[in-house]
């Protein structure tokens, strides 16, 4: 027996526009359909432009992950012209990128995820008053300090990248600004202040202790800071079991340095697997896009202006070797083999995604400190190469929300094709030709819908646990 169809959206407190249709039966979601209702056409704008314009245009896909986009564009261009950044250039680019990712995790926790627990429906819970004090939308005390700490952390971006969002500093050969010893000291000072904030307010304990947590039971015993509050809520509402994923994780590898990736590249499907990006296909069967399923290097983005009945989203459905993949902080930490993440992934629900993000934030702080300590101002920060007249390149990075890829083809010194797959394109993809739902669609199945709910709380928690970025998803 099929119940009513519920349309949830527009979602606020997610980046961009999102609408989710739910088939509900017996108080549970039976099927979910995710729609990204905004399309701008960046790939078509890039056609025919100077390749270097991608460095300026693609960051403007998104004001929250702009550095990720610029880093991916820089890497795609570098690959097309056979150039590598200098070791110190790569190090500084990694630091700039890590600052943005850390800031994103902080924003997600404070401004996007936690305010849901201040809703009146939870008024009877013993943690409700404390959560109101800390996380009431735009008024909570935790939010204020987080926004301030974030703005101060971003002084590093001001210093090394001129401005944020829409930073211009990352180039195929490295970064435009050579730091001085004074810059290095300022970066280290800023990072020390950020650590102090994290340890006293967010975690209520040493970051190294949090990173050393071996498993989920250990995590649940953590009581410090606002993380402790989250865990208390998580235990009460059983967030661990809510919105469980399929357990297939993808990471393109974060922060490539000469000593290797900061967080490893690879796949996880009941065990570590090798990643071959040649196996990626973008399926268009349920997207308002014209053409056949193709690898992004051969792909195209032509919107179906008739918005045909059989499709329901502007979002394409990327698949790796034919299956959907979940990507994001949880995926990165699982692929990197962190024991806590591996244990969290056994359930792979709302708690796993949010806790993995917190784990990654702590680990990223430690990584940023290491990067800052190993800057050598006298080194070369940019390598030079001739812009490619013809060539192809793949630019893979890890944005806060997961695997981001740019694919460029240059002909006669102009962009002949440019395709982008963003993290949320993976996570919030519609069904593919075989009818297999995307990761969010699958995770929503079984979510509880109370009789009087028109925007079910469980659905909200699950959606936000992915930290979607809709403006990147469809661009």
């Amino acid at each position, binding site marked *: 027996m099929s119940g009513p169809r519920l349309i949830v959206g527009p979602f606020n407190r997610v980046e961009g526009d999102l609408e989710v249709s739910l088939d509900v039966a017996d108080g549970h979601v039976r099927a979910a359909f995710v729609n990204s209702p905004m399309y701008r056409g960046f790939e078509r704008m890039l056609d025919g432009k100077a390749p270097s314009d991608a460095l300026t245009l693609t960051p403007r896909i998104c004001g929250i992950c702009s550095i990720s986009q610029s880093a991916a564009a820089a890497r795609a261009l570098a690959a097309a012209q056979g150039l590598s950044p200098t070791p110190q250039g790569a190090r500084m680019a990694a630091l700039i990128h890590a600052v943005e990712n850390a800031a994103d995790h902080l924003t997600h926790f404070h401004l996007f995820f936690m305010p849901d627990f201040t809703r009146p429906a939870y008024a009877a819970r013993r943690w409700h008053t404390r959560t109101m004090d800390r996380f009431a939308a735009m*008024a909570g005390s935790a939010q204020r300090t987080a926004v301030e700490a974030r703005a101060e952390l971003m002084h590093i971006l001001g210093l090394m990248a001129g401005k944020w969002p829409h930073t211009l500093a990352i180039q195929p050969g490295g970064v435009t600004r050579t730091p001085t010893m004074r810059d290095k000291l300022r970066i280290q000072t800023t990072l020390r202040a950020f650590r102090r904030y994290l340890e006293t307010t967010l975690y209520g304990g040493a970051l190294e202790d949090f990173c050393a947590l071996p498993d989920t039971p250990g995590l649940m015993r953590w009581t410090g800071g606002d993380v402790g509050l989250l865990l208390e809520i998580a235990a009460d509402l059983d967030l661990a079991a809510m919105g469980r994923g399929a357990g297939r994780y993808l990471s393109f590898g974060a922060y490539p340095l000469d000593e290797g990736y900061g967080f490893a590249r690879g796949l996880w499907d009941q065990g570590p697997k090798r990643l071959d990006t040649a196996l990626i296909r973008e399926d268009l069967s349920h997207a308002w896009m014209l053409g056949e399923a193709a690898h992004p290097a051969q792909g195209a983005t032509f919107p179906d202006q008739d918005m045909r009945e059989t499709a329901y989203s502007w979002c394409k459905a990327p698949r790796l070797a034919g299956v959907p993949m979940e990507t994001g902080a949880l995926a990165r930490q699982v692929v990197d083999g962190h024991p806590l993440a591996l244990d969290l992934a056994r359930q792979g629900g709302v708690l796993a995604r949010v806790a993995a993000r917190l784990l990654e934030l702590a680990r990223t702080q430690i990584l940023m400190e290491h990067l800052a300590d190993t800057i050598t101002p006298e080194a070369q920060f940019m390598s030079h190469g001739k812009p490619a007249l013809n060539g192809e390149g793949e630019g893979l990075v890890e944005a806060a929300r997961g695997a981001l890829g740019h694919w460029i083809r240059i002909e006669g010194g102009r962009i002949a094709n440019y395709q982008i797959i963003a993290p949320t394109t993976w996570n919030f993809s519609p069904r593919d030709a075989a009818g297999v739902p995307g990761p969010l669609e699958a995770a929503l199945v079984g979510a509880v819908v109370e009789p009087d709910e028109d925007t079910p709380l469980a659905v909200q928690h699950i959606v936000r646990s992915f930290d979607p970025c809709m403006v990147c998803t469809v661009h």
Partner: protein
Amino acid sequence: MSQIETFYDVMRRQGITRRSFMKYCNLTAAALGLGPSFVPKIAHAMETKPRTPVIWIHGLECTCCSESFIRSAHPLAKDVVLSMISLDYDDTLMAAAGHQAEAALMDTIEKYKGNYILAVEGNPPLNEDGMYCIIGGKPFVEQLKMAAENAKAIISWGACASYGCVQAAAPNPTRATPVHKVILDKPIIKVPGCPPIAEVMTGVITYMLTFDRLPELDRQGRPAMFYSQRIHDKCYRRPHFDAGQFVEHWDDENARKGYCLYKMGCKGPTTYNACSTIRWNDGTSFPIQSGHGCIGCSEDGFWDQGGFYNRLTTINQFGVEANADRVGMVAAGVVGGAVVAHAAVSALKRAQKKTQDKVEG
């Protein structure tokens, strides 16, 4: 009928002390270039006038404007402004969700009819009847028109709302259209930039909330207090431009010495904005300081000028330049094409000057 609170009431309710309030009035006066004698006036206005409600909506955009806004340098100013806005409607930050949120928007419009300021981030795409940006099942352009109908004034945040920005880049697949081409019958303040500087945003909104009127605008509709000078005019690398000392390649010796980035494609000489004075990220730096040229993101059409790294060919060293207003006046007739009006007109002036030079020489 319930009275609308004053600004001061709102601040007190947010737990802001009298002392902080006075500090805020001081900061506001300073940010707006007003003397100390204005401080009591601002304080008095805020204690007695009902606050101005703000509705903040998002169209085709990337949220970079909101991102910039919440990192304003003076946490106090930002808190105050946010606390005013928070009472009304903003879909990125507010607590309510879904249809509840849409209902909140309708309520706010109804309650403050004719009294609120509509802040628009992003723009409406007009192709396919607006289907490329759907909010609550309806095209964004409809939400925009509806919200604009009863607004007192409109702020176009950023290059998207002001000019179209990158999503309007050729071939403009969705026909992304700036706000002033859709809403024709309301006063519109353009605050361009991609994104605009946080302090410019808070400055504009504070001015409007405090004085209940629009700031002085230049001919292009931008607040003159922030957009009357070129990046070039106050650029700390300007002496190197004048001395003919240029960066030739990224990270060359000249780059390390902080020479001028003109040859690397810097658009500072044709861009009107406050980056070189107010700077970014709490005044830490701005793009030129980080070794990358300005891309001119607060100018109309900056996204389609044939390569961001091509050098400007229309500037003359030691040239006499017109100010934004005079240029804008001449340019008023040509707005609409993807022409950077300033650049074109400045070039014309320079051509004239060259002729003069020739005659004189």
